């Protein structure tokens, strides 16, 4: 047997050979089997989850060196001060004090210039996002935390870039054909090139450099700063007349009079500065033949607006200046669209129709798993063309108007040989922010992009399942055998993570699929990157636990008012037979207000017996058994109880809530077996242990200042969660409340016990039917979805890479072992990685996530995902492999930690800086030819958009009224949701739905699902004649234009006119018309794609919800945040410094 002791069938007599339940990896035997249940409270938690005052050490986002270096810093001056006073004593020199002197911008000289030039409208408060000055509010701290990925010793950061100041320096292999055919640099380039050598310690005497471009920027920024015609938020209308990007403020005439504001304002722009940049700017390099060719035939929205604009009499306008945006050659306008090989079908849909392509054709590989060893030649060949022209095509974001492709954005494909890529892990399950891993940490630092993995390990999939008495694993690193190992010969294989050579056990030589002998490389384990094993008894510390569900229900007056109890009881009654489990399944109920009520459901009782414990200080269980009963045997009683429960507390006047004690009681009840605890809470717990006080000041909701109280008020819930985690109990929290409930504190109970949090703000059974429907649907999913008990997950990666930070709901038990008392198919995880050793002689690296869990049927299973990615050594290849969605997802997670440990403004700065850093690094190190504008590789073209979207996301926005609980919930969601769903929360999708056609529609189960185009999130895209559907993940808004075609109103909404559209409409009537069917099919399809239930709100202009609809128009300016175009200008300004 290859794995002595561990796999040996008859045990070598050592007790430790058992990998016991939780610690799936016997390598980790240092932590003895006993320990795994015995909950060691070692300080191994996520450092980031430490409490607030911790210095921004190795935690979230860039630590010291990162911030000191990049040129982003220089923006500290100007209005920023109002919100973030720099540290005393160093009013302007924040950055220089941090170590490497950012010579590029001597702040003294720069600052006077900046103030006035800020692209801000007069009335708006300074956007904190912009001010990176306070990144380190305390420069003295200055810890050079080695774990931070961007962090290098200052030395390597400094000199090399300054040496390679000519931007084309290090980029010999920059093979972008389009840019090589570029038009010669326009004259303005000189202005740009001088500030170019931005990094570095080469003297601080450069005042002229930065100043030059900044004057030219004036041209750009002014239009943004030009007072907008109307304040979009105030005007409250979608008004197509609102200028999309500042400059073209000319209202397209169709509706109403053009607003009064813009013209005079625009005249104030100094035209003299504009021309050199704006107008002379040649079409960017990508305007190559093909693009220019198909430009004209694609008439689009934008064109028509331009035309209208041109036709307008705009006397005073410095037309040239304004014109630069619209007057670009048509070529760029659709540049973004058709390049990626997007199939007409949504990729998500493809996945849905054939859930997992690997299962459908699992064993058809001609020759299984050619290891990396054999592949090196082909890989080498590939690496030449790896910087695929498409991914690296240079895009000038300032001129790219229609950025979004018509459909969803597919995940980039790693640049691997065909046969490896074909068996690689599905990106929906396992995704890396960089699909080409840089060879060294310094290369990664140079690229300034976050490196991390995003996982959705327990996704609902049908997988090949292997039952075998020995599971083949590497003897030294315990990696499971996978498609990316190499077979040296018939009897030996080489681990792809640690490179140890292992023996192939005898049993593995036989292939059960083909029933042949001697072909180990054709085993399913070696043919599938995602596979599930039935674990032998070595993987169990104790017999598999039964499915145990305990429900903890708030029955205080407040709770009864909301009426949730009826819905809950009805849902559970309906789904009681669908609860996952076998004949051992147990259920129990506890209700609580100021006392705790238990229910004795012992078999043989004629009706449930209620036992009240009023001693909440020292909680005890009133009877040793019969509180958790076998569901099959006591179903009658359980149903009885559920039917009577809502009426039982109808008249209660008890307003207090002793949640803490109830949780302790529930923990006592569950701890012998483990299981799932579902807590339904409707108010702030205010009695007994764990009582909380209201910390939210409603007046501060909209403040642009820092948001307080994002961290828990007490560690009671965290401690209890850790106890739960040790006993394999997970706590899921349903918060149904109209008032502040301190989710930041309560949420800890779920976060550390691997539970999930659901939040229904202002839930009420009568006043808020949309929430009720959502609660019903989500509860159904919650009750019936698959569940894994007593789970652990370990993520391994190739030697040289190391994982240092985890995001999601779990407890980190040892350095890389995540303890998940429960795992559910809707949970996502993210990890951050750094490169510890150079990956010099490696062609590929692999990552493996192994999830060991007990299914609800009492089977112990191991689900293994393996991802293989190429290693590259040039910066342009690193950029070419960037996965911008994954980066946005990871940044969102990092920013959550940062907001908790430091402050929200820190997190916002970090987000902005992330965009600035990666783009400026691209500009300096990859671009051979410097052009004006904000240049990004095509694969990063959405990056600024996503960063801006994050800044305007509920979790991070400032200046807009946001309830603290909703903000915290948004943060929880960003960390917890798998990437596919988190992306919609970050950047909603907007569709026009009044003109749905069957063109390009999908056909699923005999239903035709139209596929409208995804629109930019800008009011400019709305029109009064249409109806638009916005999909924000959790909520769907159907916005009806005032002049919407009556046909749509009657055929879809069933109302005769706009005025008669009901105020609160949550359901589309089921009309038997083609239009109605189409739109319902489309909405139904959107809903089917996600595990939670997005509620639909039909809104009109007058609706209260219009504000939340409009808040998602992230490309537009709001009172407190920049528009997309302004944001780009800001980035550009920072980058070219």
């Amino acid at each position: 047997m290859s794995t002595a002791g561990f796999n040996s069938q008859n045990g070598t007599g050592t007790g430790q050979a058992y990998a016991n339940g939780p610690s799936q990896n016997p390598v980790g035997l240092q932590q003895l089997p006993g320990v795994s249940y015995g909950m060691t409270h070692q300080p191994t938690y996520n450092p980031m989850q430490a409490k607030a005052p911790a210095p921004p050490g190795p935690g979230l986002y860039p630590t010291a060196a990162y911030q000191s270096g990049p040129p982003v810093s220089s923006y500290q001056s100007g209005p920023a001060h109002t919100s973030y006073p720099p540290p005393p004593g160093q009013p302007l020199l924040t950055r220089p004090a941090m170590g490497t002197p950012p010579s590029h911008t001597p702040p003294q000289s720069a600052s006077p210039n900046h103030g006035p030039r800020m692209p801000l409208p007069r009335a708006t408060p300074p956007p904190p996002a912009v001010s990176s000055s306070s990144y380190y509010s305390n420069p003295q701290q200055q810890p050079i935390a080695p774990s931070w990925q961007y962090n290098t010793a200052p030395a390597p950061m400094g000199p090399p870039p300054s040496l390679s100041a000519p931007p084309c320096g290090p980029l010999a292999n920059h093979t972008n054909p389009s840019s090589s055919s570029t038009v010669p640099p326009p004259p303005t380039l000189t202005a740009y090139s001088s500030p170019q050598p931005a990094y570095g310690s080469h003297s601080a005497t450069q005042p002229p450099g930065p100043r030059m471009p900044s004057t030219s920027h004036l041209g750009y920024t002014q239009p943004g700063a030009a007072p907008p015609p109307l304040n979009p938020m105030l005007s409250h209308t979608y008004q197509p007349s609102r200028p999309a990007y500042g400059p073209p403020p000319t209202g397209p005439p169709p509706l109403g009079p053009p607003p009064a504001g813009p013209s005079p304002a625009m005249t104030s722009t100094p035209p003299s500065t504009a021309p050199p940049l704006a107008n002379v700017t040649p079409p960017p390099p990508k305007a190559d033949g093909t693009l220019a060719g198909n430009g004209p035939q694609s008439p689009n929205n934008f064109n028509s607006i331009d035309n209208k604009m041109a036709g307008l009499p705009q006397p005073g306008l410095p037309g040239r200046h304004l014109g630069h945006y619209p007057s670009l050659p048509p070529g760029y306008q659709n540049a973004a669209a058709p390049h990626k090989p997007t199939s007409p079908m949504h990729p998500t849909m493809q996945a849905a129709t054939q859930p997992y392509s690997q299962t459908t054709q699992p064993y058809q590989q001609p020759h299984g798993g050619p290891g990396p060893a054999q592949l090196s030649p082909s890989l080498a060949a590939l690496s030449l063309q790896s910087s695929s022209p498409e991914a690296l095509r240079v895009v000038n974001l300032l001129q790219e108007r229609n950025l979004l492709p018509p459909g969803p954005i597919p995940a980039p494909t790693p640049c691997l040989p065909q046969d490896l890529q074909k068996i690689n892990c599905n990106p929906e399950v396992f995704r890396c922010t960089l699909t080409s891993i840089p060879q060294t940490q310094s290369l990664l630092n140079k690229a300034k992009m976050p490196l991390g993995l995003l996982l959705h390990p327990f996704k609902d999939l049908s997988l090949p399942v292997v039952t075998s008495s020995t599971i083949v694993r590497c003897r030294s690193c315990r990696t499971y055998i996978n498609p990316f190992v190499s077979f040296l010969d018939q009897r030996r294989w080489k681990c792809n993570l640690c490179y140890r050579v292992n023996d192939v056990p005898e049993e593995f030589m036989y292939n059960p699929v083909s029933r042949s002998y001697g072909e180990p490389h054709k085993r399913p384990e070696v043919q599938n990157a995602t596979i599930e094993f039935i674990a032998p008894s070595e993987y169990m510390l104790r017999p598999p636990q039964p499915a145990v569900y305990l429900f903890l229900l708030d029955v205080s007056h407040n709770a009864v008012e909301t009426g949730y109890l009826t819905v809950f009881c009805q849902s559970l009654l309906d789904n009681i037979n669908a609860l996952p489990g076998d004949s051992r399944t147990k259920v129990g109920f506890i209700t609580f207000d100021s006392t705790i009520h238990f229910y004795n459901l012992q078999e043989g009782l004629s009706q449930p017996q209620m036992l009240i414990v009023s001693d909440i200080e020292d909680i005890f269980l009133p009877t040793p058994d019969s509180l958790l009963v076998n569901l099959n045997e006591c179903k009658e009683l359980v149903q009885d109880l559920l039917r009577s429960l809502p009426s039982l507390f109808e008249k209660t006047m008890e307003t207090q809530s002793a949640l803490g004690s109830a949780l302790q009681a529930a923990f006592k009840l569950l701890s012998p077996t483990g299981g799932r605890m579902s807590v339904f809470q409707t108010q702030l717990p205010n009695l007994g242990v764990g009582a909380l006080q209201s910390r939210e000041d409603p007046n501060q909701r909209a403040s642009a200042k820092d948001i307080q109280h994002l961290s828990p008020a007490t560690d009671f819930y965290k401690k209890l969660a850790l106890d739960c985690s040790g006993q394999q109990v997970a706590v899921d929290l349903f918060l149904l409340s109209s008032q502040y409930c301190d989710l930041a504190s309560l949420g800890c109970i779920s976060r550390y016990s691997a539970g999930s949090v659901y939040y229904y703000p202002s839930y009420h059974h009568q006043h808020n039917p949309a929430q009720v429907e959502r609660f019903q649907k989500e509860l159904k999913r919650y009750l019936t979805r698959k569940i894994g008990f007593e789970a652990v997950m370990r993520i391994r990666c190739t030697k040289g890479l190391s994982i240092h930070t985890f995001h999601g709901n779990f407890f980190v038990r040892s350095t890389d072992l995540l303890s998940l008392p429960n795992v559910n198919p809707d949970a996502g995880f993210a990890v951050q990685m750094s490169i510890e050793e150079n990956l010099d002689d490696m062609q590929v690296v692999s990552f493996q996530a192994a999830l060991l869990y007990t299914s609800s049927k009492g089977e112990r299973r191991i689900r293994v995902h393996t991802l293989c990615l190429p290693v590259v050594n040039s910066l342009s290849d690193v950029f070419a492999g960037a996965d911008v969605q994954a980066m946005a997802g990871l940044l969102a997670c990092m920013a959550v930690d940062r907001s908790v440990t430091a402050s929200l403004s820190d997190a916002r700065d970090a987000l902005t800086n992330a965009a600035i850093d990666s783009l400026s690094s691209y500009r300096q190190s990859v671009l051979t030819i410097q052009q004006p504008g904000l240049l990004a590789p095509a694969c990063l073209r959405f990056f600024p958009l996503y960063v801006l979207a994050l800044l305007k996301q509920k979790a991070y926005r400032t200046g807009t009224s946001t309830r603290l609980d909703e903000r915290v919930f948004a943060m929880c969601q960003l960390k917890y949701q798998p990437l596919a769903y988190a992306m919609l929360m970050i950047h909603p999708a907007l569709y026009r739905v009044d003109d749905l056609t069957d063109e390009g529609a999908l056909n699923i189960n005999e239903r035709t699902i139209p596929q409208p185009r995804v629109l930019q999130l800008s009011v400019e895209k709305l029109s009064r004649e249409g109806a638009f559907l916005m999909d924000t993940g959790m909520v769907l808004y159907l916005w009806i234009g005032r002049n919407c075609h009556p046909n749509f109103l009657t055929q879809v909404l069933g109302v005769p006119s706009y005025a008669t559209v009901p105020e609160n409409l949550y359901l589309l009537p089921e009309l038997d018309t083609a239009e109605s069917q189409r739109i319902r099919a489309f909405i139904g399809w959107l809903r089917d794609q996600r595990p939670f239930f997005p509620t639909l709100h039909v809104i009109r202009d007058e609706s209260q919800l219009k504000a939340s609809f409009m808040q998602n128009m992230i490309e537009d300016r709001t009172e407190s945040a920049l528009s997309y175009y302004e944001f780009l200008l800001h980035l550009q300004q920072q980058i070219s410094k």
Partner: protein
Amino acid sequence: MIALTMIARVVDGLPLAASIEEDEQSGRDLQQYQSQAKQLCRKLNTQSPDRCTLEAGDMDFHYLIAQGICYLCLCEASFPKKIAFAYLEDLHNEFYDQYGKKVNTAMRPYSFIEFDTYIQKTKKTYVDSRARRNLGSINTELHDVQRIMVANIEEVLQRGEALSVLDTKASNLSTLSKKYRSDAKYLNTRSAYAKVAAVAVFFITLIIYLRFWWL
């Protein structure tokens, strides 16, 4: 108290069903007993006595082997032996009834974990002292309980180890003797060569002497 119950296949020690102990006080030590029970199941084979009590500290393992299935329970030492065995008999009857035919085809561990429900219930009747009185019949059925073999768990678990030590020693011995044999052979050949060489030298000297000096 019956702290732990386990049912396993004798041939390969594959656990088929088990009951999780819900008693908090003994929760700590149980981990160790769990692993002992597992090891024990692996050690047992068809030659093992089919009823046996093994002492492990202040707890006793009782096991019963029937139809290739081992029923094992862990009780406090004070717990009456006959009740323990009656309990195991009861489990056997029910388990064999329900799953007897499927036992040999079971692949994964704890395939019949759902039997746990029955174990829990049965355990309750046997542990409850009031209910125990109603089980008077067991006295007659299990009169031969005195003859059940008693051994120490450590001995049983280490028996295999001792054997393997013996095995190693024996194999060491055999390699050593082989080495001795080859060494001896070598020595023999060497001494034979030496003799031959001596004789040869003698004769050559003799011939030379005869040749040059004699004649």
